[in-house]
């Protein structure tokens, strides 16, 4: 027995077991996310349940579970959709009460801009209130008109977002210039007159765009009639229809196509219906941009600090104390960083910038409110210990002889640091950056109070000068998960979105990391350092 202990065999099993447990937990977590997320865009079969009491329910099965307290009975959760008709998207059905189960070939699943999915049978197509086609003829007619309806919708959106957006932007700029002049006591004169004339011109342009919009909207008169369970009917304008599928008659290829299209819409479109539907593109954009800004700030700062601590400072009690303090900074709750960001960056620095440069817009704050710049700086503060520690460890791993060799060749300390030490420590810096980016991409709490919003009307980058708007509020995948999962009015319907968004966030972190790792490996190959 003692021999076994002395051989160290049990210790190997213990360490291996610990690793296996850790991998199991990580793997399990990722598996849960993937399993829940991956099926979201797959067109599930639509079943029609006829219950013993004669009621009919049409929808796809979302979940199946044992009825609590009974061992032999099961119930299914059916996504019946049609929130506007039934009031709820999901219905629990006791399997024992199901009399008949069918797969109706004509069951259509309609994705629309409002009220979530619509499930039912397409009964008729109307134009200006008159029935054009009905029965089996209705769908081909609808299908024929859908592309035009989508094009019209896109055109209206382009006018709203693009042309009218530009006019609004210009008007706001003129308003601020007028206010600025007013603040300097100029209320009349050629400059003011010119601006007023410009305003009038913009108002005329606005009216023109409005009438264009009205004309386009006037053409959106085509509707389709969808018949749902219980004889309920919905007359749906084609303008609201995003996609129509017949899952029960779709072949595998069509399903895959639908799946891919769904994934693409998810990553490329704006959210709808208070974020529970549509895409998450603004959140992806905000997350990536915030991580980038944070990296640009945190890397030089952390590296310089680490260089001072390791290369220049006289090692002693004070430097050790600083080092311990830096390490402990990583243990400060992130919300505290957020509070600091609000107090220092937003009210302090941002408030000062507003008073100095954006006085004409006050009391509406420009930089004195949450924005992507302040959120990034707050996160830079939060992740700086990671970069400092990684860089310092890299510096410590460079043999002292390397520095001596450079000095002995007549290089100055600065030349040695820049030409020998910095290249050698580059892989460690990138390791620190990788860790910092992963930490920052997943952080939510400090962002909630420094600039992340549920729905940002504009991206931080657009076509209006100066193109990058660091003062703007932005959307973030981490906050999106919290918002959709816990703040949404329809949690059941939003749940798959939570997992999908989580998977997407993970994918983005992995992508950012792969990029940094590839860079690091390229550097490592170039310098082929074994120590760092």
């Amino acid at each position, binding site marked *: 027995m003692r021999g076994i202990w002395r051989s160290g065999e049990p210790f190997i099993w213990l360490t291996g077991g610990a690793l296996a447990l850790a991998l199991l937990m990580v793997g399990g977590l990722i598996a849960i996310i993937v399993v829940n997320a991956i099926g979201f865009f797959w067109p599930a079969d639509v079943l029609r349940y006829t219950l013993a009491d004669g009621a009919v329910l049409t929808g796809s099965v979302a979940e199946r579970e044992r009825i609590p307290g009974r061992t032999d009975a099961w119930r299914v959760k059916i996504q019946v959709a049609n929130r506007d008709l039934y009031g709820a998207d999901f219905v629990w059905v006791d399997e024992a009460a199901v009399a008949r189960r069918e797969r109706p070939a004509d069951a259509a699943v309609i994705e629309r801009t409002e009220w979530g999915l619509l499930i039912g049978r397409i009964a008729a197509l109307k134009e200006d209130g008159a029935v054009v086609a009905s029965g089996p003829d209705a769908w081909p007619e609808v299908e024929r008109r859908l592309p035009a309806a989508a094009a019209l919708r896109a055109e209206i959106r382009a006018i709203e977002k693009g042309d009218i957006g530009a006019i609004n932007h210009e008007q706001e700029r003129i308003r601020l210039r007028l206010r600025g002049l007013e603040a300097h006591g100029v209320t009349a004169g050629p400059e003011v007159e010119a601006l007023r004339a410009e305003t009038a011109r913009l108002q005329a342009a606005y009216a023109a765009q409005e009438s264009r919009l009205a004309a386009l909207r006037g053409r959106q008169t085509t509707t389709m009639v969808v018949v749902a369970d219980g004889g309920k009917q919905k007359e749906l304008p084609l303008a609201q229809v995003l996609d129509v599928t017949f899952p029960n008659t779709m072949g595998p290829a069509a399903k895959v196509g639908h799946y891919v299209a769904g994934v693409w819409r998810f990553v490329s479109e704006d959210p709808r219906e208070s974020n529970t539907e549509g895409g998450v593109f603004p959140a992806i954009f905000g997350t990536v941009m915030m991580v980038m800004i944070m990296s640009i700030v945190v890397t030089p700062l952390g590296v310089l600090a680490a260089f001072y601590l390791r290369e220049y400072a*006289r090692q002693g009690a004070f430097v050790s104390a600083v080092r311990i303090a830096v390490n402990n900074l990583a243990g400060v709750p992130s919300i505290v960083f957020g509070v600091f960001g609000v107090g220092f960056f937003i009210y302090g620095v941002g408030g000062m910038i507003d008073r100095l440069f954006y006085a004409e817009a006050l009391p509406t704050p420009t930089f004195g409110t949450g924005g992507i710049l302040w959120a990034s700086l707050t996160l830079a503060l939060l992740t700086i210990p990671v970069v400092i520690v990684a860089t310092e460890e890299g510096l410590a791993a460079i*043999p002292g*002889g*390397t520095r*001596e*060799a*450079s*000095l*002995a*060749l*007549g*290089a*100055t300390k600065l*030349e040695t640091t820049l*030409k*020998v030490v910095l*290249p*050698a420590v580059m892989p460690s810096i990138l390791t620190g950056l990788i860790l910092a980016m992963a930490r920052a991409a997943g952080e939510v709490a400090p962002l909630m109070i420094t600039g992340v919003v549920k729905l940002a009307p504009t991206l931080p980058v657009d076509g209006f000068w100066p193109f990058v708007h660091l003062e703007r509020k932005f959307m973030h995948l981490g906050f999106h998960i919290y918002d959709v999962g816990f703040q949404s009015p329809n949690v059941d319907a939003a749940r798959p979105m939570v997992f999908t968004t989580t998977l997407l966030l993970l994918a983005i972190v992995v992508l950012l990391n792969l990029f940094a790792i590839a860079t690091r490996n390229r550097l490592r190959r*170039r*310098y*082929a*350092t*074994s120590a760092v």
Partner: protein
Amino acid sequence: MAVTLNPQATTASIMEMPMVEIERLSLWYGAKQALKDVGMSVAKQRVTAFIGPSGCGKSTLLRCLNRMNDLVDGVRIEGTIRIGGTDIYDRALDVTELRKRVGMVFQKSNPFPKSVFENVAYGPRVLGVRGRGDLDGIVERSLRAAALWDEVADRLHDSALGLSGGQQQRLCIARAIAVEPDVLLMDEPCSALDPIATAKIEELMLELKNSYTIVIVTHNMQQAARVSDYTGFMLLGELVEFGVTRELFTNPRDTRTEDYITGRFG
């Protein structure tokens, strides 16, 4: 310390052209005295060796010659060292200029984590050599002088850390002579190498002394006997005896030297 010889007196007869002159040099690390009143001369284009047991101050003495001891906290130096007639501890002297004239090879080979080419080109680059053609010439000449060219000519742009220990040390020599120093300091350059690599470096030293003044520290007495023209024996921070190598090994004047070279201690 009963009989302290005056080393300069003993070597007066063999003084050729002095390259390095050390006078009454004492050095303290904090309160601990590491060098005690050392005085000697290093002849130009000769190999001068310092031998002695560990901790006797031979490396410290060597590192005084290019002021590498400046990097150590709490070091205090008295006395003068002149190299080529210039007082190297003169306040007006730029230490980086000194180090360009006094190259150094360390006990542990310490190539930069860069390519072979970049290692050798580093010193010239620091000196301001920019032209690719100039650098190519310097690198080739230095590597040939260090007897390494044939082994690395086809992998100049591979990492220097991929070379063997002996090759790395010869690369460090090539790197040191690329800036064409007057004096080359070698701090136990073979202590981490196998006998074959050691033999190569010793051969190289004999070759290099035609162009450079070499000062070598070694704990290997056979090595000192093989490669050096002059040898100094150090003990507890003192230069006990300094003279022509053959004389010091065959006919030591000091009993402590005799005890050491006959293996009675150390």
